[in-house]
């Protein structure tokens, strides 16, 4: 697995924008508040980033079924393609799709855009359901992290930084040809760590890990005060 080589050179690692100076732990790493999130949602609309993430935040905060339908339409076809490529029959894949979207609706309150985008969050829900089917057992999952929903002023900069980095990752992947992406997918489904994949492909995964970790630490800090 570790000896795979790209057939043609991967795109050069993307230069990261200078890091924004991170605000000190001034508190209120709160991400579930409607008023606070309004700003983030607006900013994301402004820059026309990731639609699906925008929809998921709206589903989480407003329980809006029309937006939920939009979220479904934006990701369900790709998810179905993915599940079938992984070896599921169409019927089984549609069942997993249904279970996944019901879970998205039920667990939307746990979605934290400082630690994931919608595609990543939904991918892991679907993957876990697929694995449970293949294995026929209930694979233990890590503890849920409850996000706070009372205070205002979410850390919009952290959220936007992570979403920017993920957008760069997406751009890098979309610029690869199908063979290159195939190799990354094989590495991903094998036993490679993200740092090995980063080394192999130049994809900026280390930065994303640092940001997710920062998001977790800030949330823990806030939770410890409540």
């Amino acid at each position, binding site marked *: 697995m570790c000896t795979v080589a790209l057939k043609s050179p991967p795109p050069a690692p993307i230069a990261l924008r200078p890091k924004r100076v991170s605000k000190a732990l001034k508190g209120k790493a709160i991400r579930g508040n409607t008023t606070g999130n309004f700003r983030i949602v607006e900013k994301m609309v402004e820059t026309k980033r990731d639609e699906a993430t925008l929809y998921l935040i709206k589903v989480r905060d407003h329980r809006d079924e029309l937006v939920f339908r939009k979220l479904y339409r934006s990701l369900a076809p*790709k998810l179905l393609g993915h599940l079938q490529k*992984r070896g599921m029959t169409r019927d089984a894949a549609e069942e997993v799709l249904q279970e996944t*979207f019901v879970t998205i609706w039920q667990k939307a309150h746990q979605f934290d855009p400082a630690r994931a985008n919608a595609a990543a969050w939904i991918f892991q829900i679907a993957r876990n359901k697929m694995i449970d089917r293949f294995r026929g057992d209930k694979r*233990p999952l890590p503890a849920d992290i409850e996000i706070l929903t009372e205070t205002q002023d979410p850390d919009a900069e952290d959220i936007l930084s992570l979403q920017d980095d993920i957008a760069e990752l997406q751009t890098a992947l979309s610029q690869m040809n199908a063979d290159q992406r195939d190799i990354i997918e094989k590495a991903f489904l094998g036993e490679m760590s993200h740092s090995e994949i980063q080394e192999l492909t130049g994809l900026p995964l280390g930065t994303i890990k640092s940001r997710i970790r920062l998001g977790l630490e800030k949330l*823990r800090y806030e939770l410890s005060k409540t």
Partner: protein
Amino acid sequence: MKQIDHHIAPEMLADYSNGHLDYATSLVVASHVSLCDSCRAEIDTFDVLGGALLQEEIAQEPSPDLEDTILKAIHTSVAQPRVKASGPLPQPVMEALNGKQPAWKSLGPGIRQHIIARDKKSSVRLLYIEGGKPVPEHSHKGQELTLVLQGAFGDKTGEFHVGDVEVADGDLEHQPIAMHGEACICLASTSDNLIFKSMLPRLLQPIFGI
């Protein structure tokens, strides 16, 4: 969060994410990840890459009535709340115990265990060891993971505190001793670790074309 020094190797985390580890090992990995932000960020990053690859997939249109079926289902299906963590026992362990406290069985003075699951190739158990007592060995073959949930133990490779996990192959000669003070509670798995490797070809078949 307390400082954690002994982690799960990133490759094993990747195996866990892909469903390649058996139940016993998965339970220890999930429990460590519940306590460790660093390893959680590692698997979350893995999911971000999965999500990005998902966006590049070739779409397949779902059956036209599936959307409405799902919209009905969100009103009729009730979410099963997860069993909560309890004291030193993290959420995945309490789920494995179906929400009940462990029923400790004595293994000798100052040492107790509760076997959570066991089959021919693997086992996972909780161990309760009073300070100064040795951590019982659970296997001589395969891979052992020992995660500290309360107290601490030490052996010649170092000290292990809450959240630390020791990963040992069967041939590692070591005799961990619970450190003095609060009793040490560990979650320990032993496994030949290959059970679900047999599933791998099936999962990857369409991609590798084998």
